[in-house]
């Protein structure tokens, strides 16, 4: 059984390495914007190749950069530029690509704003997606989705990852200090939800002395804090809040209207309290220094409000309410049936049979595969960096003169003494303020690589020290230089000692690579979270993801064991 598992994982690895190899050249080239492609053939000095070349390049691009969750217009996927692969220039100069309009949002818990269509994984739907499509059409720019954690959407905006941030950004005076907001496109209130069979909480005031769930950094938090005496639990995903409400850990939850409607509505165990709490206006967020785009979007939004287009969208999603009616001055009859809401409820209510579930899981495979590929890419490249840099650091620490070796020690201690999470944030969001900008992919690789280099350096140091000093003297006595001695005599012997801990670290790096999701990368763990939340299935999806992590790591464990055995031939037992 073990053997067949190994073979299977070996095949998987081979496929992934192949994909990686294919992806590499595409990554290196800067993909031209869709419009630029038209002008390119005329300007290119070699007239015979461009036609033949560009489709290939585009195809390749599509293969490797298909967003784990493809932007909304899946049919036109070849035009989309994926942010994870987008190299630095593209990310930093979005305005130059006049053909596309990048916007930031978080697919995790994005219902009904923007989320992965359960019917066809890979396509995005949501009421804000429909609004963005309209805006894009009017601007003649293709909206392109960029993933970022919800609470980092505004920092990402200031980091120029995208031109606007969407997804229920509340227009508040505090927020307006950091960014500019469009006119409101939706108005809602907070909704208090309680378990169906309880009567302990029937208004906001009853929350005193109770345990209430909210979303992190949301208006509800402050309202409850003002109320006083409430045991507030802050969640990062709505689903977990509702789960805890149903299994008795919470007395109530207080969420934005749409969130409560979509996550609480289909649940039979959840009851809505009829009380309007607070008033929330949603606006799209823009960097403070981009008044032109903001003005154009405002024009379009006002037009959509005026001609009923926005109303139609909100009706489709069952989101129309008296607050919006008052804001828009529109008291007419609905312009559409709540088809999208009904579809969502139908999906939630469905009890899947085994075969249907299996079919769904098979449908997950491409999405999970893309996440896994990214995980593997990030892990392999970080490990490569960690091994090379770690070797260098260890060599300097052990063999270089004192000031240099102190520097290496300092690096190792600082990196080991601070959380890798902070390091990633620092590299991605912090370094741009001194002019060093990495794309999310390379920020992840550099961050993890530099972090693990510190640990690898210590591994190598232990390896170097385990080689008797007489080996170094023997090499020096043969007139080898210090570096030659390290390279040809010490390092190969240290390698064997170091192999097991290095393999161990790689497995651990494979798992730590999930941290890059915080800098907008959709790798395996992020894919899991998004799928699990959208389908409300942590169990089956979780098993799949766990299996994939195991399969990714197994070949390396085996490879290391094989190498160890091979080396052991020359070194029976431990050196005396």
């Amino acid at each position: 059984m073990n053997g067949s598992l190994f073979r299977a994982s070996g095949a998987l690895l081979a496929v992934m390495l192949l994909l990686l190899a294919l992806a590499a050249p595409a990554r290196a080239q800067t993909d031209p914007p869709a419009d630029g492609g038209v002008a390119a053939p005329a300007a290119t000095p070699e007239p015979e190749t461009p036609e033949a070349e560009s489709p290939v390049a585009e195809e390749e691009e599509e293969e490797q950069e298909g967003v784990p969750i493809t932007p909304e217009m899946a049919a036109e996927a070849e035009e989309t530029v994926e942010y994870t692969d987008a190299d630095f220039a593209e990310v930093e100069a979005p305005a130059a690509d006049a053909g596309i309009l990048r916007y930031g949002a978080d697919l995790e818990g994005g219902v009904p704003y923007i989320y992965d269509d359960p019917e066809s994984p890979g396509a995005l739907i949501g009421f804000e997606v429909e609004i963005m499509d309209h805006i894009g059409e009017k601007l003649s720019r293709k909206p392109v989705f960029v993933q970022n954690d919800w609470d980092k959407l505004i920092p990402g905006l200031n980091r120029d990852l995208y031109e606007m941030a969407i997804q229920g950004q509340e227009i508040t005076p505090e927020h307006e200090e950091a960014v500019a907001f469009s006119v409101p496109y939706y108005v809602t209130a907070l909704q208090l939800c309680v378990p169906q069979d309880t009567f302990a909480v029937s208004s906001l005031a009853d929350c005193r002395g109770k345990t209430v769930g909210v979303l992190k950094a949301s208006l509800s938090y402050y309202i409850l804090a003002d109320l006083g005496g409430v045991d507030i639990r802050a969640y990062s995903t709505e689903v977990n809040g509702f789960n805890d409400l149903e299994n008795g850990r919470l007395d109530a939850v207080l969420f934005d209207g749409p969130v409560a409607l979509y996550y609480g509505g289909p649940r039979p165990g959840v009851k809505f309290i009829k009380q309007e709490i607070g008033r929330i206006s949603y606006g799209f967020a823009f960097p403070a220094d981009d008044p032109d785009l903001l003005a154009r979007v405002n024009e379009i939004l006002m037009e959509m409000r005026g001609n009923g287009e926005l109303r139609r969208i909100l009706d489709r999603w069952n989101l129309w309410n008296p607050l919006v009616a008052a804001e828009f001055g529109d008291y007419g009859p609905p312009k559409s049936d709540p088809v999208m809401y009904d579809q969502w409820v139908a999906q939630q209510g469905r009890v899947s049979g085994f075969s249907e579930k299996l079919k769904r899981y098979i449908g997950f495979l491409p999405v999970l595969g893309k996440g896994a590929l990214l995980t593997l890419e990030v892990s392999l490249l970080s490990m490569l960096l960690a091994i090379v840099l770690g070797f260098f650091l260890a060599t300097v620490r052990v063999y270089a003169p004192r000031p240099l070796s102190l520097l290496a020690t300092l690096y190792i201690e600082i990196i080991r003494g601070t959380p890798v999470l902070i390091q990633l944030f620092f590299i991605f969001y912090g370094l741009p303020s001194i002019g060093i900008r990495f794309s999310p992919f390379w920020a992840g690789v550099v961050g993890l690589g530099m972090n693990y280099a510190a640990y690898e350096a210590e591994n190598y140091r232990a390896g170097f020290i385990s080689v008797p000093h007489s080996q170094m003297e023997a090499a020096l006595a043969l007139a080898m230089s210090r570096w030659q001695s390290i390279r040809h005599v010490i390092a190969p012997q240290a390698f064997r000692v170091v192999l097991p801990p290095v393999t161990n670290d790689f497995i651990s790096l494979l798992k730590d690579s999930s941290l890059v999701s915080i800098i907008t990368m959709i790798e395996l763990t992020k894919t899991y979270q998004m799928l699990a939340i959208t389908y409300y299935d942590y169990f089956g999806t979780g098993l799949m993801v766990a299996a994939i992590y195991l399969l990714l790591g197994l070949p390396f464990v085996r490879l290391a064991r094989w190498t160890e055995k091979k080396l052991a031939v020359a070194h029976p037992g431990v050196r005396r």
Partner: protein
Amino acid sequence: MAVSEQAAPLISVERLTKSFDGHPVLRDVTLQIEEGDLVSVIGPSGCGKTTLLRCINCLELLDSGRVCVAGVALERQDRHTQPDRLFADQAHRLRAEVGMVFQSLNLFPHKTILENIILAPMIVKNEPKDAAVANARRLLAKVGLSKHENRHPHQLSGGQQQRAAIARALAMNPKVMLYDEPTSALDPELVDEVLQVMRDLDNEGMTQVVVTHEMRFARNASDYIVYMEHGEIVEISDEDEIFINPKDDRTRRFLRQFMETA
């Protein structure tokens, strides 16, 4: 540089001092060794004989004094004003003239015997592999290990390992061979095969300096013997004379003790 009246000695050590942590190990040692000589250095433990050897090929950098081997010289006035790194280059050049065999068996365990021998010629002298291998085989034949070229060190006996170590050092074509107690880690029955190789080299005219406790070898094979005590050379003497009629009391005491225990 002063031109001496006779041919310059191959190894010349002048007023060499060396201390570790303020503790003097060599005091003002001066020694000349002519080409082709086989010299044994004896003395009680801690007398500085090993350090003297290590200073000759610069594994230890002398504090002050001068070492010259085959015309390559390293001279230092004062270790406080002249940091070690100033001498890294000279030390390296000097080492290229000197082969050394250690007390500990320190062939490279991850390489075969043949690979052990060709490594340094290939990476230090850029010898092509064919030439290096041919030379290595010639040397292995000389030390009687032709059959073992593809073995790893741990597959050989201690005596075989030391013979291979001699071949490895010879592959760099040194003008001088230094041995630091080459047989003291060996079982008694393996000692002779190593000493025999050194006798053969002596017959070919190799200049060799041996720090040893093998009094029989010192007496029989050496051209002369250097007796050291407390970091100083007490007596340099003809091999028989020092055993039969030591000039210095300290030498007599040492030899008497040694003969009693042996």
